[in-house]
């Protein structure tokens, strides 16, 4: 846990428990104090992570008063003498157990799965024969099996309220309550609707804390057994940048994961979201690639193989609804090969291209889903063996602009503080981040702070889940961020709400900022943002008066042609208010993928070697030439979208794509399709046949997250170990061994014993990682930089006295408002906004093969404001065709006031209606990030027979 900075030390009190003295801070409960002595007091309604309520009374103890006291709520006092067990106390506990058991169902789902039903454990302890209890039985309460992941058995519920507190106070989803009274009292979801129809987000926290068989995890295809019968593997979650610590329970006989528990890491405090808790089964999906594949001769010249990816709509086979690449349609184009044949072919073709067209005709996309070690060896292959810096990954599509702005202003691209420190902030700004969907567990910390009094300001064009918790939500016009924040700064300067000392001592360039901000009075911003000037002033003042303000942002800021300008404004705002380098302050661009921070740290970006050391700096180049024993290319490489353009222009001819799916993730699919098809040679290394793999010459079967050990760096800069839990299928190989084999066959020795040896090489070349070792990363990882890995957790708050810039000061870089690259007009009157859903991740390759996630969110849809739909004469649920200047997609429309009038929101996970068929590939000039959050589209009601038309070319 991050240290609770500023919390006053509590007075200590001494009491005795069962005759043993114990000294604890005042306010500690008897139950907690006893636990510190190793005395377990039985309890049903309490869990150390929950606020104690004392409703089950099983934990009663004798404190020398007239009646027994509930240990879970009663605080210890000086001189108190506590007896935790006696004949009288045990009789009380036994009676309570009998009462609860009298109406308990014969079969407990918890006992039948995890085997840890706490009520039945008490029954065994007190030797209670359920059948012998002389009490009337109720007529039973119903089951609710409507949720795809959680089974509800109301008959097994003892109304301990653990689930209600877990839902309301741990996850802040506020779904579970109580309904009725007397015997009819039960837990209820929302307005007592079935769980599967409620607003439940399936985080599973309730099932994790439930002591009985009332709320239990459903099996995801592999039977759940008691923990002791399964192999526990401490690892991390493979999905978002929060990087929750997880224990996976593996059924070795089936080589599959049965279930997952959160671990008490500082980053997640045992919490998980639906993806982390229920989204692991993609790894043992039958479509996993298990053999190297080589494209058959008759499938040249190359092109997409399936109707979907060709974009011609319904193929002769008719497409299946939903889901994933149709293997039967694509696989005939490939033949199985041995690893030797496949690797020799890859090495030979890359060597030929390099010899004929030069090293910069080769390029590679690595992946933010792979480990630091894999990112490191991959960029080393590109630089030391291919001889090019043309290596990038999806960071380019995510926070490239944020990093560009951060490097320029404060000299470092990483977060300056961890998200958990929001507990010490008195104001938090969440800008352009759908935190509850995209970083659900980080969002729980923000929601928690907001519930405890931190003022939460949310700025977004869409009313996202986090906005519901906001004290002030500003819905701004899409792409108007610069105008809004300039106006905030205008107000702060005008009303003298700035931190003069910080600005004077720690920054430079204030005059230039002042000059620009002067030109953005709130009245001007009102016209651009659509937020009344009075509201702008009001919220700016709240920010300006904060003692400690923390700023989070997401893709709503970064994915614009002015993404760097957006981030510059947020940084200026932080500098102006002195909100960097202290507890409760900081700049935190929430990283999207589990290892987007680490892959960037490891040098998988075209301008820098590991740890952001410029490829254009001769001294750095010499250092890496020495380390790697080869001459290196001093020219900075191409970025993601530039590589695709290079492929179209034939300047890039050979590509190695490891674990990315640019066909769906990159903007303007119709262009990407042509680019991928025009490559002379493409190697795709992945765990499934992706849309991108249809263009490959060679497909190499890789290992999934669960089949390998490696380190991953989360959005907080926390480096954690993901441990191998499963054996890879068939002939699939570890990603780094494949990369090393290709290097060897191209004439460069790259040999490592294991991932740990690669990590040691990385840390020797990346000063920020210096000192970290696998041993020191146990059990919950370390934040980089970490000056004392043996004892410390790493540095949580960066830049408390200087910035890593030449002058040691941070620089204000003012930005002028400029509209998006493609504005709506008469022909294309709506603004398209793309984004993610809680249940899915990136291009859906993994999540659409996870049965629970697929069951909850099976198909593509777009979201529009009900007013717009009414105006267009379209009913919610109708099929609509969205057209942009680049392509069109057909999908169902949902009505939601969360999306503003004039806007269309499309999740980009769905291949059958790929949002990126529409998006604009225009780039931010600094971060080279495309404008995925803004383009102009037209909305038409689709005819019934148009329903199967997908991702077709420009109209």
């Amino acid at each position, binding site marked *: 846990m991050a240290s609770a900075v500023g919390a006053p030390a509590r007075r200590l009190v001494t009491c005795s428990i069962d005759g043993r003295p114990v000294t604890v801070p005042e306010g500690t409960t008897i139950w907690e104090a006893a636990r510190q002595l190793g005395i377990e007091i039985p309890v049903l309604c309490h869990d150390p992570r929950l606020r104690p309520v004392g409703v089950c009374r099983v934990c009663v103890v004798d404190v020398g008063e007239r009646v027994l006291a509930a240990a879970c709520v009663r605080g210890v006092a000086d001189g108190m003498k506590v007896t935790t067990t006696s004949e009288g106390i045990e009789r009380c506990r036994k009676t309570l157990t009998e009462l609860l058991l009298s109406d308990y169902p014969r079969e407990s789902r918890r006992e039948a799965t995890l085997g840890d039903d706490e009520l039945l454990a008490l029954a065994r302890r007190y030797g209670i024969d359920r059948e012998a209890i002389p009490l009337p039985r109720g007529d039973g309460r119903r089951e609710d099996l409507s949720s795809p992941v959680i089974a509800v058995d109301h008959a097994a519920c003892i109304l301990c309220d653990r689930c209600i507190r877990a839902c*309301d106070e741990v996850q802040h989803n506020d*779904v579970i*309550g109580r309904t*009725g*009274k007397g015997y009819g009292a039960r837990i*209820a979801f*929302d*307005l007592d609707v079935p769980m599967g129809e409620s*607003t439940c987000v399936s985080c599973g926290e309730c099932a994790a804390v439930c002591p009985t068989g009332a709320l239990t995890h459903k099996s995801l295809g592999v039977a759940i057994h008691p923990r002791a019968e399964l192999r526990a593997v401490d690892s991390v979650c493979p999905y978002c940048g929060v990087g929750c610590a997880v224990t996976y329970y593996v059924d070795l006989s089936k080589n599959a994961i049965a279930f997952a528990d959160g671990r008490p890491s500082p980053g997640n405090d045992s919490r998980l979201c639906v993806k982390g808790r229920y989204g692991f089964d993609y790894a043992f999906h039958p479509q996993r690639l298990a053999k190297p594949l080589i494209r058959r001769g008759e499938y040249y010249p190359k092109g997409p193989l399936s109707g979907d990816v060709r974009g011609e709509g319904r193929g002769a086979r008719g497409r299946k609804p939903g889901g994933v690449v149709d293997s039967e349609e694509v696989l005939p184009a490939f033949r199985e090969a041995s690893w030797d044949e496949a690797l020799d072919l890859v090495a030979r073709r890359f060597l030929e291209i390099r010899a004929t067209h030069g090293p910069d005709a080769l390029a590679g996309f690595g992946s933010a889903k792979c480990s630091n070690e894999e990112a490191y060896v991959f960029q080393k292959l590109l630089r030391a063996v291919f001889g090019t810096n043309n290596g990038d990954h999806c960071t380019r599509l995510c926070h490239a602009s944020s990093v560009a702005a951060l490097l320029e202003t404060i000299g470092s691209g990483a977060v300056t503080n961890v998200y958990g420190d929001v507990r010490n902030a008195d104001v938090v700004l969440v800008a352009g981040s759908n935190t509850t969907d995209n970083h659900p567990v980080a969002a729980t910390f923000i929601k928690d702070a907001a519930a405890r009094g931190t003022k939460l300001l949310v700025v977004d064009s869409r009313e996202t889940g986090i906005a519901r918790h906001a004290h002030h939500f500003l819905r701004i016009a899409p792409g108007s961020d610069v105008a809004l924040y300039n106006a905030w700064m205008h107000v702060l300067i005008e009303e003298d709400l700035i931190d003069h000392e910080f600005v004077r001592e720690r920054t430079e360039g204030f005059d230039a900022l002042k000059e620009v901000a002067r030109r953005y009075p709130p009245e001007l911003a009102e016209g651009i943002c659509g937020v009344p000037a009075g509201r702008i002033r009001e919220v700016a003042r709240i920010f300006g008066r904060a003692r400690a303000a923390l700023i989070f942002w997401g893709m709503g800021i970064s994915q614009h042609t002015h993404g760097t300008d957006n981030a510059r404004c947020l940084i200026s705002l932080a500098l102006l208010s002195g909100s960097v380098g202290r507890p409760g302050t900081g700049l935190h661009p929430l990283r999207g993928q589990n290892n987007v921070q680490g892959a960037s740290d490891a040098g998988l970006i075209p301008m820098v070697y590991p740890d952001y050391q410029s490829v254009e700096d001769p001294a750095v180049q010499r250092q890496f030439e020495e380390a790697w024993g080869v001459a290196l290319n001093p020219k900075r490489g191409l970025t993601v979208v530039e590589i695709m353009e290079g492929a179209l222009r034939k300047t890039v001819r050979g590509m190695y794509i490891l674990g990315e799916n640019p066909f769906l993730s990159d903007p303007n699919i119709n262009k990407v399709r042509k680019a991928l098809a025009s490559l002379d040679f493409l190697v795709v290394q992945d765990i499934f046949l992706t849309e991108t793999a249809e263009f490959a010459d060679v497909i190499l079967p890789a290992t999934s997250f669960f089949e390998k050990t490696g380190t991953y760096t989360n959005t907080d800069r926390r480096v954690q170990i993901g441990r191998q839990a499963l054996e890879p299928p068939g002939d699939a190989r570890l990603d780094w061994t494949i990369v090393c084999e290709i290097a060897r066959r191209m004439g460069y020795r790259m040999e490592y014993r294991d991932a740990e040896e690669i990590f040691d090489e990385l840390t020797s070349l990346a000063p920020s990682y210096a000192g970290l070792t696998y041993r020191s990363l146990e059990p919950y990882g370390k934040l980089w930089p970490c000056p004392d890995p043996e004892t410390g957790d790493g540095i949580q708050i960066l830049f408390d006295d200087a910035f890593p810039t030449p002058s040691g000061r941070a620089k204000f870089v003012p930005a002028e408002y400029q509209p998006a690259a493609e504005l709506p007009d008469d022909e294309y009157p709506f603004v398209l906004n793309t984004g993610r859903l809680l249940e899915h991740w990136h291009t859906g390759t993994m999540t659409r093969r996870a049965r629970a996630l697929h069951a909850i969110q099976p198909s593509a849809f777009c979201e529009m404001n009900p007013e717009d739909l009414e105006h267009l004469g379209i009913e919610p649920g109708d099929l609509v065709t969205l057209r942009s200047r680049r392509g069109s997609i057909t999908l169902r429309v949902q009505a939601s006031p969360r999306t503003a009038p004039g806007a269309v929101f499309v999740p980009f996970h769905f291949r059958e209606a790929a949002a990126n068929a529409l998006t604009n590939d225009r780039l931010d000039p600094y971060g080279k990030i495309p404008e995925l959050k803004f383009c102009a589209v037209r909305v038409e009601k689709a005819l019934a027979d148009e329903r199967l038309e997908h991702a077709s070319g420009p109209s």
Partner: protein
Amino acid sequence: MRDWHPAVAAAEPSQKAERDPAAPLFGGVYRERFERILGRYPTKRAALLPVLHLAQEVRGWLAPETMTRVAELLDLTPAQVRAVASFYTMFNLKPVGSYLVQVCTNIACDLCGAGKVLERFLSETGTEPGAISADGRYTVVETECLGACGFATAVLINDRFYESVTPENVPALLAELP
């Protein structure tokens, strides 16, 4: 004059609920009453009970969408509103007729023939307990003690209180409802 207790004269006139679910929950005069209620409490959530009563007065019952709206107005979650509304029997969680007839059948009233009074209400309105009569006017239910044991049988029709009700005066009592 009828032979029930004169306290009736002091009670508010029977309120016929507005049943237009499309109308704003608290418009016009209700808006003012809503604001007045909020003004009496330190926090919005504290006003939940009186606001639910007001909502029921407007709508006749607490439909899911009504509870959702109340949750929005008071910064509560739907689950919290439902928890409170389902605890108190005075809140109707399903639709009722324009007139909700609640007949006390606790011990005192029961001894004085509340069962017959109940039967008479049911036969006069042609309904089953808890159901809505065909013309939509009546719902007849049994209720717990209304605190008028000295004047059994006690009956509550919407907000109006009737005492010493006998099977014989049920038709007149119903006929008098507007």
